[in-house]
């Protein structure tokens, strides 16, 4: 496992190098905090960003993309063009989300060419957290401030320098290509990285996540959904900010026989999501729709993929306009589950 140290004074050079022949995407300061943005000026990259306003899933699963264009009844013959990208400064929770998304987009051997091509062309340089964000609970859902899942390189911010650890072959190649800027990490630095991660972990407030899947299944008929459904406004903020939500819509856009078929983010919270052409809707009320989002993540995904589709980034908590708090919902589910 290649571990190197980069003096922070050389960060700009590293970013420039990473961005050569590739699109560089990293957090920058925004009026609401921080956001992932395509970088043209490396000096704007912000290492302190904990939870960016939206997750970086856009890099592999954009808000919308053209599946193909067409003219009349002919589909465009062109091959999919995806730019090589390096995502820098991704927090471990968000990187872990990529690993979860991989499972959906390759599920049952059916590969999603759009997602996979983006994923294949995206290098992920993660940055371990030294302090938690506003509503973080990664350790309660199987993650940690220094989780290695889903990233090619994991960095540790050690005040004056960055320790960079290669996690994949691609990551190692990347670090080797920057070897003129780095030195081999010392034992002391490795230890400091470990300590920083351990310290960050202690700062997190644990959330009780329901473990008993059978009990969780029972909760389908729980009264609490009614109250939560009343509060839920039915917008898409939680799903769109979520690094693991991946539901989408496919629509056609056309003019004079020329057009495109696009896919775009969608969410089970929208009242029309499951509406049939006949007018029948299996989820007519908001409580059913809110429950679907929670149970899909914490029950159905666990049954299908062995893991909850939540990385504990807390974005849904921080950005919900209705003040719904997933952590509190989980705690309530966990306590009901214990009772039953």
């Amino acid at each position, binding site marked *: 496992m290649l571990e190197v140290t980069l003096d922070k004074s050389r960060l700009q050079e590293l970013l420039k190098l990473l961005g050569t022949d590739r699109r560089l995407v990293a957090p920058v*300061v925004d*009026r*609401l*905090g*921080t956001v992932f943005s395509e970088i043209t000026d490396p000096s704007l990259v*912000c290492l*302190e*960003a*904990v*939870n960016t*306003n*939206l997750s970086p899933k856009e890099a592999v699963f954009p*808000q*919308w993309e053209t599946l193909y264009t067409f003219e009349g009844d002919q589909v465009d013959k062109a091959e999919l063009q995806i730019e090589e990208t390096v995502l820098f400064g991704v927090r471990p929770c968000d990187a872990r989300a990529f690993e979860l998304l991989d499972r959906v987009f390759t599920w049952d051997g059916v590969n999603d060419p759009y997602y996979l091509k983006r994923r294949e062309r995206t290098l992920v340089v993660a940055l371990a957290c030294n*302090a*938690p*964000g*506003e*509503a973080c609970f990664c350790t309660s859902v199987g993650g940690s401030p220094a989780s290695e899942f889903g990233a090619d390189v994991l960095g540790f911010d050690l005040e004056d320098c960055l320790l960079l650890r290669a996690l994949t072959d691609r990551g190692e190649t990347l670090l080797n290509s920057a070897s003129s800027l780095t030195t081999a990490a010392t034992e002391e630095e490795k230890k400091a990285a470990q300590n920083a991660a351990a310290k960050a972990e202690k700062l997190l407030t644990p959330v009780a996540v329901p473990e008993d899947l059978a009990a969780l299944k029972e909760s389908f008929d729980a009264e609490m959904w009614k*109250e939560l459904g*009343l*509060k839920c*406004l*039915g*917008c*898409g*903020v939680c*799903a*769109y*900010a979520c690094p693991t939500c991946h539901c989408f*819509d496919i*629509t056609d*856009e056309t003019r004079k026989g020329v057009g495109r078929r*696009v896919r*775009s*983010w*969608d*969410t089970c919270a*929208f009242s*029309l999501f499951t509406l049939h052409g006949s007018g029948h809707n299996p989820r*007519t*009320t*908001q409580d059913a729709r809110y429950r679907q989002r929670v149970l899909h993540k914490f029950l159905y995904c666990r049954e299908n993929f062995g893991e909850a589709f939540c990385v504990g980034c807390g974005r849904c*908590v*921080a*950005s919900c*306009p*209705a*003040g*719904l*708090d997933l*952590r*509190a919902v989980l705690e309530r589910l966990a306590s009901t589950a214990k009772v039953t």
Partner: protein
Amino acid sequence: MSQVEETLKKEVTKLFEEETIDLFVGHEAAGVPLKTSACFLSSADEAKRLVWNASCATNLAAYLPQLFKRPGGAKGEWTAPKVGVVAKGCDSRSIVGLIKEKQIPRDRLFVIGVGCEGMIDRHKVAGALGTVGLAKAKIDGGSLQVIGTDGTQKSVELAEVLADSCRECQHRTAVLFDVDLSETSVQVPETSRYADVAEFESKSPDERWEFLVSELSRCIRCYACREACPNCYCQECFADETAPKWLGVTTDLSDVFAFHLGRALHQAGRCVDCGACVAACPQGIDLRLLNQKINKDVEELFGVQSSLSLEEAEALLCFRMEDDQSFMTEP
């Protein structure tokens, strides 16, 4: 405001005990600082959950129509509940609008009016904190003490982080109520309620366009603005219609403009500038620039503000023979 909170709790307790209401809609604390959540109380002993402070920005009127809809599975006779609600000036105006548009029944509603000195815009607090999250917050007189997730402490002027709608608000007490808890001390600011719009109007057309492009290119089409808005109760929004299909569902800028222009136009003569759309927007888009512009035009051209009374007709539901038509093209 804690005095008001106490009075509110007592009042709600009384309403339940006297069986004036079956359900009360108020604000309760949410999981993160400076955020509250709508709560739905059904008994007097739940009144203790209620809070009243500068983070009760939610326009509760948005939650009311659903409460008066016959539930899907209800059999036989069904009577709408008697619902109590706490209302700031803006909430009460939205309630007036919803009553006029027959979305909620006045006779099943008990409105507790409260005075409001403005609500905190969490986006502004987030901006003031910069790269760190908000761990704790405390209002201390005219200032807000915040502690970041990395431990940094900051003090910001409360006025600096108030929502733009609140800065320019001139209806700080309820316009419709059954009980009014507002204090006489509630001050109306001296600024014009259209100062922000007037400033924007003074820019060149290209500057305005470029600014709106930069704002609206932040839109992710999550529809939080729509869902948080009391006026957006359409069963099927024009943005979701497929026949005709008005616009695409992506963040293509043309479609984003069409959506927000369409939404603003649907609010014409109805928007009460409560700021719910701005507060709900996860991207902090200044949607008020569009809505408040229409409010300004409505007042200037037709001499009315939206939903101030049950009696006055809404601006687009009436006309005068002598309405302005100077904008029309003549040969």
